């Protein structure tokens, strides 16, 4: 009975979404306040019912209800409890439910935190989010219902894919989906502005914190995914330019452009059209990414053929959302206007260049991801586009983006001079080039490593210099604490995120340039060396886990006479699916990771072993976390909360949308 309850809850949420998507928007045009007033309660109701459905699915997993087809396909009674809960989003149907759950979370948050917005805007924003919900829930109810029964019920499940049985599975999908779906808020705000034909600084101030939060979640989601792949796949890679990864990276690139463009729209009233377009593209790519990953089209385009309804539905849904939004854009964008003018040498210009480059990067990734699918679908043949393509295109495009991050900080809005910037940055330039070159020479590496280090130092030093100059502006004798605390969180967020990028670039450069790897055959007592360390195999045992058996090697890592670490990599075989898996052992460090994985048994006593030394890989992770922290700081700026408080005190009784929005 309980799964049926979930089904009914989902249907009720679907009905509410239809109401929310139609009446409030209609009301915003004919001035019917009752219709508009439906938006908030409908959003709350949707949140309630989708959460109920989601809770029911989680319960079915916890209770091992293998009469539910989706549970049977993704769980097993031997699976530990936390993986059974994570199994809820282990497959196509459950991920969609998670997606919709996240959508209603954002929807509910918008409904609760939008008191200061004009009634029409709230109605339109929530209405558009409701329509997105309609599309996704229709897809779920008609083609991929997670509550479908299996008759007769199975005795036990087919188990969750062993690769997914990891802590990463518990947090990675929810974080990533929070990010993906969070862009729907920016998207809804953009469409609402297009409908109203008005877009100004106040609009940008409303949508900025939402976009920053979504971007922060997406950053964390991608980071956790990469971190997880690094230790779980057993071979030490952290980014494969795999279509699944690209699907999350494209919205991130466009989202990064969007948060910068929103800043210009808020501060200067420029880039209005452009901001709206970026919001549309960011969400369209999120939607595309969701379907790319979950539809099975990546495994084979012919996966569509096994369930043509799904493929058709997805294509129609994408066409409606993207096509509809772009049509609205083409029709209404001229009314929104371009916004304020600015000089060629100004912060606006630099941000525009960065924006264009980020968008072009996203486009090249999209091309590399979809091109093989198109060729395959057309039956022209099979090709694959691997990491070399992405690296060859992506790196040269990123170099100017990273370079411009420093002058972008020092450029003034509207008008600036190159000479002035050069004056302020000359010591930074000298210091980063000298230090970068010295370090690269000391490590005797390639030109690319030197370039990467110089760019990273350029960003780090310029950001620090900017902070120092800002702190120097105060009257002499002002205590440092006061100086620091008078800077806005928005500014701190920007600084922190940019520092994070610098740290990230250091990590990527050094891992790419200096990593070493050694495949050897080892017997007990054998020794191999890597990166100045001696690795000795001292033991090999059979161990038993809750749902697997494993061969576990013991390796002692020494440097000179000092024992650095004892590592125990495993080769596991999961009993239900009879699937082997490599479980690497890693000794993490500030300047390097030592990474040992166990291959196959070559003979009774010898095993294939891969030992790797990965310099500065932890800088990639810490850089990513710092970038996300920057997003969080910027989103928590006081002025977003002030606007909320101020307007709570005097809620306008009747607001004409046209008088509310200050004409440019």
């Amino acid at each position, binding site marked *: 009975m309980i799964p049926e309850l979930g089904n009914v809850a989902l249907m009720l949420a679907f009905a509410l979404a239809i109401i929310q998507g139609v009446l409030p928007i209609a009301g915003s045009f004919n001035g019917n306040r009752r219709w508009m007033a439906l938006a908030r309660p409908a959003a709350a109701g949707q949140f309630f019912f989708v959460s109920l459905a989601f809770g029911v699915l989680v319960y079915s997993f916890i209770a091992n209800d293998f009469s539910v087809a989706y549970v049977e396909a993704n769980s097993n009674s031997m699976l530990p409890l936390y993986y059974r809960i994570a199994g809820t989003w282990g497959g196509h149907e459950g991920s969609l439910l998670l997606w919709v759950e996240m959508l209603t979370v954002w929807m509910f948050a918008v409904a609760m935190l939008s008191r200061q917005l004009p009634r029409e805007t709230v109605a339109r924003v929530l209405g558009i989010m409701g329509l997105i919900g309609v599309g996704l829930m229709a897809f779920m109810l008609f083609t991929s219902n997670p509550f479908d029964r299996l008759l007769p019920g199975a005795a036990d499940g087919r188990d969750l894919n062993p690769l997914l049985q990891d802590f990463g599975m518990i947090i990675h999908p929810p974080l990533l989906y929070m990010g993906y779906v969070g862009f729907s808020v920016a998207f809804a705000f953009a469409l609402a502005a297009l409908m109203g034909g008005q877009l100004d600084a106040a609009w940008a101030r409303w949508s900025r914190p939402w976009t920053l939060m979504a971007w922060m979640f997406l950053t964390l989601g991608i980071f956790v995914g990469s971190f997880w792949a690094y230790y779980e796949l057993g071979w030490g890679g952290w980014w494969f330019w795999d279509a699944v990864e690209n699907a999350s990276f494209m919205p991130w690139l466009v989202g990064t452009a969007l948060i910068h463009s929103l800043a210009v729209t808020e501060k200067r009233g420029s880039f209005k059209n452009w901001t709206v377009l970026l919001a549309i593209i960011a969400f369209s790519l999120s939607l595309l990414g969701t379907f790319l990953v979950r539809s099975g089209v990546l*495994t084979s385009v012919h996966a569509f053929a096994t369930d043509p309804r799904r493929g058709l539905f997805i294509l129609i849904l994408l066409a409606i959302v993207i096509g509809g939004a772009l049509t609205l854009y083409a029709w209404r964008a001229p009314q929104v206007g371009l916004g304020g003018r600015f000089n060629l040498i100004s912060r606006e210009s630099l941000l525009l260049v960065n924006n264009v480059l980020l968008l072009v990067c996203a486009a090249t990734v999209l091309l590399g991801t979809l091109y093989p699918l198109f060729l395959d679908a057309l039956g022209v*043949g*099979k090709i694959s586009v691997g990491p070399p393509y992405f690296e*060859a295109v992506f790196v040269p495009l990123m170099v100017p983006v990273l370079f411009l991050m420093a002058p972008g900080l020092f450029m003034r809005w509207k008008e600036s001079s190159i000479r002035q910037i050069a004056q302020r940055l000359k010591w930074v330039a000298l210091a980063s080039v000298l230090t970068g070159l010295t370090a690269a020479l000391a490590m005797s590496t390639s030109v690319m490593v030197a370039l990467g280090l110089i760019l990273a130092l350029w960003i780090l030093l310029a950001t620090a210099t900017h902070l120092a100059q800002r702190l120097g502006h105060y009257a002499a004798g002002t205590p440092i604490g006061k100086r620091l605390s008078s800077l806005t969180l928005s500014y701190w967020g920007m600084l922190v995120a940019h520092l994070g990028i610098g740290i990230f670039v250091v990590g990527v450069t050094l891992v790419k340039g200096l990593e070493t790897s050694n495949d*050897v055959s080892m017997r007990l007592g054998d020794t191999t060396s890597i990166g100045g360390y001696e690795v000795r195999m001292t033991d090999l045992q059979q161990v038993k886990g809750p749902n697997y058996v494993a061969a576990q090697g013991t390796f002692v890592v020494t440097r000179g006479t000092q024992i650095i670490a004892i590592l125990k990599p495993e080769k596991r075989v999961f009993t239900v699916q009879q699937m*082997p898996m490599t479980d690497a052992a890693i000794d993490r460090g500030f300047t390097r990771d030592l990474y040992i994985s166990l291959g196959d048994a070559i003979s009774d006593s010898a095993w294939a072993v891969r030992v790797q030394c990965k310099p500065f890989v932890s800088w990639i992770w810490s850089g990513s976390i710092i970038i996300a922290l920057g997003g969080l700081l910027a989103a928590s700026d006081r002025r977003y909360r002030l606007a909320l408080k101020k307007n709570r005190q005097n809620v306008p009784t009747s607001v004409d949308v046209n008088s509310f929005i200050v004409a440019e």
Partner: protein
Amino acid sequence: MKPRHKRLALILAGLAALGLAAALILQAFQKNLVFFFTPTQILAGEAPHNRSFRMGGMVVKNSLVRQADGVTMSFMVTDTAQSLRVSYHGMLPDLFKEGKGVVAQGRLDQNNLFVADEVLAKHDENYMPPEAAYALKKANEAKQTGASAKQINYPTKSAE
């Protein structure tokens, strides 16, 4: 600068960025697109000798041979019509098995030995890499039409 000139400059800068990206993409595509060939195609001489490509099919049972160093392996890959020996230095993926589908990327040497620098076998154990499935299907079609494999006109692309 007049506003018109500014706009022109911005548009030119945008076009330059796009042009640069297009040039990079074209060059990267030219160099890095990896084409796929079935064992039949390779033995018919359709695959290039001087550039990396992908091949795939089923790993022939009992064909896995380990060299003396313990970490270099060689095995036969078949599309049921033809088979080819592949050698690989390194660790085979967890899901590599004789009798199962496999895709390898690497170069062909003078003696028609495929020297792989990457072996892919992903997902669950019943999963067939789409490219390997494609190779088997092609070979099967060729058998059914009764024509010799060499006369079949495959959808080929010139490598360069």
